[in-house]
């Protein structure tokens, strides 16, 4: 079954705390993405990963870092979270450059 799974689905953190968002996919897709979605701003690309340990910045990488040690798993890390990082974060995967993304269910992060 083709599925992208995100954990946790909901998270509340205080400003300055570290945040780990995790994403897994069961399709052996090479390419994985992290986007954030804010009202009126659409989906903004944070990072893209082409395979294990092959990551590239997207359009808004500042304040974020990623880790991909296994093809099926892609993590987004916020070191010392800020209130303006309150958002819904979506992980997605695709096979090569098909342009078709499979999205996870999203992780809603609130930073107080």
């Amino acid at each position, binding site marked *: 079954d083709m599925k992208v799974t995100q954990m946790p689905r909901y998270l509340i953190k205080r400003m300055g705390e570290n945040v780990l968002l995790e994403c897994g996919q069961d399709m052996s897709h090479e*390419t994985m*993405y992290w*986007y954030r979605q804010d009202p*009126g*701003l*659409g*989906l*903004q*690309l944070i990072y*893209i990963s*082409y395979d294990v340990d092959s990551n*590239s910045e*997207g*359009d808004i990488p500042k304040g974020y870092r990623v880790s991909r040690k296994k093809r099926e798993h892609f993590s987004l890390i916020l070191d010392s979270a800020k209130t303006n990082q309150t958002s819904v974060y*979506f992980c997605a995967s*695709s096979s*090569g*450059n098909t*342009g*078709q*993304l499979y*999205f*996870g*269910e*999203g992780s809603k992060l609130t930073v107080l």
Partner: protein
Amino acid sequence: QQQVRQSPQSLTVWEGETAILNCSYEDSTFDYFPWYWQFPRESPALLIAIRPVSNKKEDGRFTIFFNKREKKLSLHITDSQPGDSATYFCAASSDTNAYKVIFGKGTHLHVLP
């Protein structure tokens, strides 16, 4: 710099009417244009997509019209249904831009019964 622009931001049509959602882009190297739809409290999902080798792509009530010269495309939804109410995102990607898929800000479509 917004690479993919969508208009209108919000659109309301009556059931049975045709909804027209517009999209334009900057980068002439973009060669794949998927449209995603997103229902409230759900994640985006692929609806329909087109490559510049075609100027039209049809899938049931959904049709993409593509104008490469003007760097514009539009999504037409004929016989709109209340169940079509969602946010529609136009996106673009390019083989030469390292698999980046860039999204527009979306159009909120409301179909009234």
